[in-house]
């Protein structure tokens, strides 16, 4: 059964149609890429899936659960994690707190237990810290636990954002331009890394990217958007040679 399906999703900003008839069928374990020129509606789709925007029409389902109409935290608690195109860390908080905050929905203790530091509070807090440190260690950030997030170098901030998204314990991970601002060498590492976390955390990944190298290199299926419409969908080889795509996105002429 499909993990995430979108059927005939439309979204308007005022009169502007940002997403037109978007369909998606994501199977568990898929690694799918969404590409398209700036303004094609890629990030809008992430925002529709995660509930930041409410779709004007259509339906988005996680298995059988309808996501349209739910708030972002409800959708996130259904184990959909995401990162952002422009890094959105909690800048003035510590690296550890950035990851701990993402444990909100999984940690089960009541406000009263929080107020008195009683009952499940201690056990749950210890579990959150242990898990956060485990994630930070995976991302080689554990020695920076006490550092303020905004003081981290750019690459570490990107890693921290992924670590934070994984703290949700996601089934589905949405990566919004993970390679933005990286050099070719770093992109190679990132490609390996994405495949590694996919195996390690048993993730289904949907990613938006401009770096063709990354998209063509690791995605099994690619969806091409332009002006809110889906131009093409298929495996990388098919996309690379699709004349419509070449014209709209990659420019005319053969890909070099």
């Amino acid at each position, binding site marked *: 059964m499909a993990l995430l399906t979108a059927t005939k999703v439309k979204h308007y900003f005022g009169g502007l149609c940002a997403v037109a008839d978007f369909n998606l069928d994501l199977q568990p374990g898929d690694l799918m890429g969404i590409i398209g020129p700036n303004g094609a509606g890629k990030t809008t789709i992430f925002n529709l899936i995660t509930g930041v925007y409410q779709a004007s029409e259509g339906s988005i389902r996680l298995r059988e659960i309808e996501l349209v109409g739910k708030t972002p935290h409800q959708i996130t608690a259904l184990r959909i994690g995401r990162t952002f195109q422009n890094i959105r860390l909690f800048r*003035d*908080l510590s690296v550890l707190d950035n990851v701990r*905050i993402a444990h*909100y929905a999984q940690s089960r203790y009541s*406000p009263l237990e929080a107020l*008195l530091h009683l009952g499940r509070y201690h056990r749950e*807090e210890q579990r959150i810290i242990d898990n956060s440190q485990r994630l930070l260690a995976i991302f080689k950030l554990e020695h920076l*636990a*006490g550092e303020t997030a905004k003081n981290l170098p750019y690459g570490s901030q990107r890693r921290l954002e992924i670590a934070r998204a994984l703290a949700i314990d996601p089934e589905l991970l949405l990566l919004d331009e993970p390679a933005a601002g990286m050099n070719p060498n770093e992109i190679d590492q990132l490609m390996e890394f994405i495949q590694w976390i996919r195996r390690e955390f048993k993730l289904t990944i949907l990613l938006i990217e401009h770096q063709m190298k990354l998209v063509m290199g690791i995605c099994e299926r690619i969806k091409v958007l332009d002006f809110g419409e889906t131009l093409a969908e298929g495996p990388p080889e098919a996309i690379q040679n699709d004349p419509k795509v070449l014209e709209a996105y990659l420019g005319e002429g053969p890909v070099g």
Partner: protein
Amino acid sequence: MSALKNAWEQLLDQRWLLPVLVLIGFVLAFAIPEYNLLNKYIQLVLMYVGINIILTVSLNLVNGYMGEFSLAHAGFMAVGAYTAALLTQKVLPVAAYPGLFPLAVLAGGLAAALLGLVVAVPSFKVRGDYLAIITLAFLMIVKSVIENIDYIGGPRGIPGIKRLTTLPWVFFWTVASVWMIRNFVYSKYGRGVLSIREDEIASELMSVNTRRVKFLAFMLSSFCAGIAGALFAHLLQFISPRVFDIIKTTDVLIMVYLGGIASISGSILGATAYTVLLELLRPSTVAALLSWLPTLVFDPLNQYVIQHLGVWRMVIMPLLLVLVMLYWPRGIMGLREFRGFVPRRDREAHHRLKAHGGSHGAADSH
């Protein structure tokens, strides 16, 4: 010197430090009025310090930790003060059973918390300056509602409230409020509050139920303000709507921003410093403090300077605030915390890996 510093830091890490300090405080709070260790005036100032600490720490939860700008604090205080005063005046037989007073205080806090719930609702939609205006409107509504209810004295207020607020009670409620807010801050809800300040959308997308967190933060903040109001009413022995106007909120705001946003120790420092300094600048206090000067110096000083301080102290204090804001924009302790207030688990999680050079396995060896 560094040995001294080490010893100091080790002292701060002791588990028993805070409980022992609180215990000493309690003993003093009982002993001071019992044996008249300090004169009545200083005892009164101490009680105001306690009440102001409660107000400042609780306002800091919304204005500092959550990053909103609430002006409604005096309104919550008024609700707590009126609820508690009405209970001790008309319902509870406190003359026969003074032990019932904490019930009145608690009721004041709960009534204020209920109203805090109402103020939390607009904060779902509106933020920043606009929410500040809404909280200001709310403060004005509370004031005019009280003014228009004859049963509770209307604009004349309630005179002749029994003086039930004592030093031990102030100390108890101060410790209880600070402890609860500190516990809240170091929980998933408190981290939720912080994440709302940082980036509300990212916060939702990290599974934080921001509405629930806002409800809780506003309720806890107003609950404590209500408690402070109840204590205040039974100390001043007279309340009227005018006592709880925007000036009262402004006082608390000054203490919050002076002490530092998002810091409990800062709030305690700010409230104490502001309250004490304001008292120290009273002409009578300054005159008493400087009375050792020779008459030749004292008399002209008294005549031309000290006697005018009554007006000038309200200029000096705001001026001090301007200077603090210019040189410490986040207040004295802004975004920092006295380490004794940070739960041990939090402290170690932030530091132990650093100390062990990042080896994860060594983390459990403590």
